[in-house]
């Protein structure tokens, strides 16, 4: 505000000057009065931001923050409604599982009748249907249990099995600026809908190539962008690697920035970088970090001691598998692509052909689109693939199709390393004291075996192949893993017809049945195939989806045949599934509570913010009104004094 605080001349005062000063003062007072009046009536202290720039800047920041908090409130309110709907959907699940469990316990002993069992079966089927409906519940257009595929139902019934079509991803929203919280719970976490992966023991060990991204190194942890210093003991060169995308870029940058006067060769090997100086120049090649960086160490080329002219062989940088990783770069290029593999899930067998595949993605696509209700993905460590079943109630087997594809990929379900205790859904292999089974050769010889000392499938195979009486090539029986489908396979080249190749039960032991060599309930194996030369046992290492649907479906199935062992196994699983559902509900409840706490805290925060904003921008009414009164008095004084002064003139006295 232009204040008329200008100096008064000390020599003389002219009339015009006095008049103009009076006008200026009046103007100033009136403008001030108007400004104060505007402040009072609008309640705002700042009419334009430049009235008080620092308060205006603070005020703007506060206003912006308040606007964002408004959106946070909407986020919390909306998602609270989804969480409550999810909780409400699950209230009936636990009681359903508990009553199913109770009914199952009622007929789990040998005194129940078929009619009673049939009654429980009907109840179980009803429960399965109800659970599927619950799992497919919609709220505000969202399928609550589908994970992030929330626009499609989570479950459907397929041939008496339950297939899960959602995923395990969580939907998120912002509960505060920059802070996320999960707003749903997926079907797998609640019901158990996807199996554990087929446990592979193969590290696919992808080879490093020029175009491997730095972000995929160190198992996917990547490399921090930074600089390295390369020296030949005389001169140094600092190389900035922050613009590099691939390991090939790093090699190119190193070669392009040698210490002055030298030539550096950097090559990308299948495991890391190899760097050397030109031999003729001598010196001692060292590579060090710049400042507090870690680029050299993470690239595996940190070498402070020096290697003379080299070569400096960098450490293995452990690249991660990516969808676009080429199959030719895996397991040293020994992958069998021609044979394919077999996936059996829920009584159907699918042959997966990867002969035309170039990349891992092609393999994953082939498996995922085979119709086998499995999900194949790159594993967490980034060195292999996981195949998991989505079909509850079904058994998943992955086996060869005449070659080694499944084993090469590390996804064969029944392998030599498989532990005998894990077979048959963890029921293991039951042995008795003494011999458990015998193998009858075509030449009539019978080999006896005591299975109590076997730990793994390989032990069984080795025992058969190394049996002391089985060493003559013309007559011997060779045990191996089945070439196509199946479990343990016995083959012989003997053409004798003295006896048929068979496996025989001994001492009432179930070991051979548990190993898949003899059909369940029989005492002798099925007739051999291939003109009597091949006896293929069953794959007894299936993968199942552990969860509520799986337990209910298997329970219903087990009641048909009154398979007591299976019934007691799945009943335990049903109980665990119930615990799982309750855990999920507890998690939901905890989340709802924390959202509620956040909502309350947000309200308090908003009040504080509004208070701070008001302090910056709003007018202090008491102050403004008292200023207004003072200014009014000043105006009045000005007018009065002006009137008095302007009347004094010499003319009155002449």
């Amino acid at each position, binding site marked *: 505000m232009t204040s008329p605080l200008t100096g008064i001349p000390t020599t003389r005062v002219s009339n*015009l*000057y006095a008049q103009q000063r009076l006008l200026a003062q009046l103007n100033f007072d009136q403008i001030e009065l108007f400004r104060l009046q505007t402040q009072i009536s609008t309640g705002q202290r700042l009419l334009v931001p*430049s009235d008080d720039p620092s308060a205006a800047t603070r005020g703007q920041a506060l206003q912006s923050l308040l606007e964002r908090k408004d959106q946070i409130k909407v986020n919390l309110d909306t998602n609270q409604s989804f969480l409550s709907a999810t909780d409400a959907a699950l209230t009936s699940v636990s009681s359903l599982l508990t009553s199913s469990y109770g009914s199952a316990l009622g007929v789990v002993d040998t005194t129940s009748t078929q009619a009673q069992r049939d009654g429980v079966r009907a109840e179980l089927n009803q429960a399965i249907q109800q659970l599927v409906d619950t799992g497919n519940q919609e709220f505000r257009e969202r399928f609550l249990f589908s994970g992030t595929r929330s626009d499609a139902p989570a479950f459907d019934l397929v041939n008496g099995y339950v297939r899960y079509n959602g995923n395990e991803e969580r939907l998120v929203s912002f509960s505060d600026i920059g802070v996320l919280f999960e707003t749903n719970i997926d079907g797998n976490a609640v019901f158990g809908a996807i199996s554990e992966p087929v446990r592979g023991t193969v590290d696919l060990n992808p080879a490093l190539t020029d175009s491997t991204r730095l972000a995929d190194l160190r198992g996917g942890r990547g490399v921090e962008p930074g600089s390295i210093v390369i020296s030949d003991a005389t001169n140094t060169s600092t190389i900035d690697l922050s613009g590099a995308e691939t390991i090939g870029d790093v090699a190119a940058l190193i070669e392009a920035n040698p210490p002055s006067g030298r030539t550096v060769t950097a090559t990308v090997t299948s495991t890391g970088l190899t760097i050397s100086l030109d031999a003729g120049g001598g010196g001692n090649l060292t590579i060090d970090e710049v400042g507090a960086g870690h680029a050299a160490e993470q690239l595996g080329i940190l070498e402070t001691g020096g290697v003379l002219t080299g070569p400096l062989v960098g450490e293995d940088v452990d690249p991660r598998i990516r969808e676009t990783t080429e199959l030719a770069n895996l397991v040293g290029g020994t992958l069998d692509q021609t044979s394919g593999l077999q996936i059996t899930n829920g009584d159907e067998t699918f042959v997966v052909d990867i002969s035309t595949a170039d990349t891992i993605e092609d393999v994953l696509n082939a498996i995922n689109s085979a119709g086998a209700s499995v999900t194949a993905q790159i594993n967490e460590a980034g060195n292999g693939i996981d195949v998991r079943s989505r079909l509850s109630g079904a058994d998943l087997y992955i086996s060869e199709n005449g070659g080694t594809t499944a084993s090469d990929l590390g996804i064969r379900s029944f392998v030599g390393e498989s532990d005998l205790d894990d077979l048959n859904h963890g029921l293991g292999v039951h042995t008795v004291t003494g011999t458990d089974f015998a193998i009858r050769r075509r030449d009539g010889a019978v080999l006896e075996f005591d299975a109590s000392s076997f730990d793994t499938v390989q032990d069984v195979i080795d025992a058969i192949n190394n049996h002391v009486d089985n060493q003559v090539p013309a007559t011997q029986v060779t045990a191996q893993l089945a070439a196509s489908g199946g479990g343990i396979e016995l083959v012989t080249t003997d053409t004798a017809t003295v006896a048929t190749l068979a496996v025989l039960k001994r001492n009432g032991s179930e070991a051979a049945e548990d190993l898949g060599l003899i059909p369940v309930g029989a005492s002798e194996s099925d007739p051999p195939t291939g003109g009597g030369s091949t006896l293929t046992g069953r794959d007894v290492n299936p993968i199942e989806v552990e969860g509520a649907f799986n337990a209910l479906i298997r329970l219903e199935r087990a009641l048909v045949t009154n398979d007591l062992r299976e019934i007691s196994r799945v009943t335990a699983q049903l109980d665990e599934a119930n615990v799982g559902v309750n855990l999920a509900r507890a998690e939901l409840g905890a989340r709802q509570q924390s959202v509620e706490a956040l909502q309350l805290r947000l309200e308090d925060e908003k009040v504080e913010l509004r208070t701070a904003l008001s302090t910056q921008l709003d007018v202090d009414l008491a102050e403004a009104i008292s200023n207004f009164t003072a200014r009014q008095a000043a105006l009045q004084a000005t007018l009065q004094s002006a009137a008095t002064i302007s009347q004094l003139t010499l003319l009155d006295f002449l």
Partner: protein
Amino acid sequence: MSLFGSIRMANNTLQAQQIGLQVVGQNIANVNTPGYIREEVIFEPAPAQRQGNIILGLGVRVAGVVQKIDKFLEDRLRGSSSDAANSDVQQQTYLELERLLGELGENDLSTSLNAFFSSISEVLNQPENSAIRNLAVLQGQTLTDDIGRLAEQVATARNDVNDQIISSADDINRLTKEIFDFNRQIAIFESSDISESDAVGLRDQRNQAIIELAELIDIQAVEQPSGAVNISINGEFIVNEVARRELTVVETTDRGQPVAEIQFVETGSVPGFTSGRVAGLFTSRDEVLAEFLDELDSFSAALAFEFNRVHSSGQGLLGYQELTGEFRIEETDEPLDAAGLSFAPENGSLQVLVRNLDTGVTETTDIFIDLDGLDTDTTYDDFLAALNGVDGLTASTTSDARITLAADAGLEFSFANDTSGLLAALGLNTFFEGDSARTIGIRQELIDDARLLAASGGGIGEDTDNAVLLADFANRELDSANGSSVDSLYRNLSSSVTQATAVARSIAEGDQVFMQSLESQRFATSGVNLDDEIVRMISYQRAYQAAARYIAEINELLEILVSI
């Protein structure tokens, strides 16, 4: 000395007093005339005469009528009024800019920005609802419209200032003509007058013209012995005793708007205006408003490009079956970071996803964008070839030099993981279009189908990972802005205007106060005080009376003499 001589001396006295009264009357008449310089009569004793051995005076002589003016003060006053006009114009411009920005109100850009990011948060809350995606696109349109409107309004303000500059040139010419004419008239007048009088009236008017001119431009005015005033600006003369130079306006364009330059007609040289209203107008147009437009443009460009970088690495609820880029590529065989794109890509890679609509199976292809400056960098032709190498995709260039992609029947495509920024640089799978405040908008594909909003990061319709990044984008540190976020860029833009406005206001106030204090000193010297004049009037009146009485006395003596 005879009696007749005495009478004549008394007569001179009467004349002198009458002249004095005339001057008093002139001052009284002009007591309220602004800019009037009061006049004073200079009395001198008339030259003495020797009579025998006594020296007798011959009465009073009017030496002249002069203006009471402090020339030094006038110079300072002119200088300060130039400064005051300069800072006032700049203050007005800043106030206008502040008003257009409208911060602290409810319709400002920061509210618009927050509303846009809030709408993307809503997509996170209900990703299955496509109406909400549509709302996000519409909110984006509101934001870009607001930015464009602000830029237009500032550009209009700039045009207004330009128009004022043009009319100022005419004013300057008019004033220099007036001053030149007055110079000649005053020189003629004063040179033909043997007294030391000032050519009052003419001088007053010339002074007014000089003051008016000083408000417009910063001049130095030096009075010559002939009475003419030489006016120069920054050492170049503009008016002198014999000539004056005219100014003319030459129009060019700058930042897409017409701008006027003021030049001397005959030499074409530009007078360097450092103060005055015209200097203030130039500063407003070429620094204040132009720099604001530049900053708004760079803010819009950063917002568009960086947001697009995140958006173009994501996928929507469905893929594209055909897509044309936004930006033209002129140099197809130069490395992509030297091919003339407004936003430069950098060394990195991107992925192209092709999905079969029937089977839902996706195939991913890596494309490496090599721009490290070593060996062969990727050119547009290389990129086109790489795209054509993807199964099911055909890439070509349109007739207006833009890239276009098409998928085979039954397929759709999208992109992922672009670390090079090339997709944003070409305008593929982007959200915003345009690269400046006046061109920023939303891609038509998204307006037509909001399901293309790239919320997903793991595949078409898979998740909401990309939407998380987009919703939090306001706080994201941007490499291209040295780690500042869009939020802090905007905050800097608006707070620098606020600060500058506050500074301009206080400078303008300071200049005003200084000018007023100089003016009050001027009034002290040159202003008319009625009491002063009345006192003089009384003394002239008494002197007249006394002289008249003296004449009467001499007359009696003559009477006695004649009647001997």
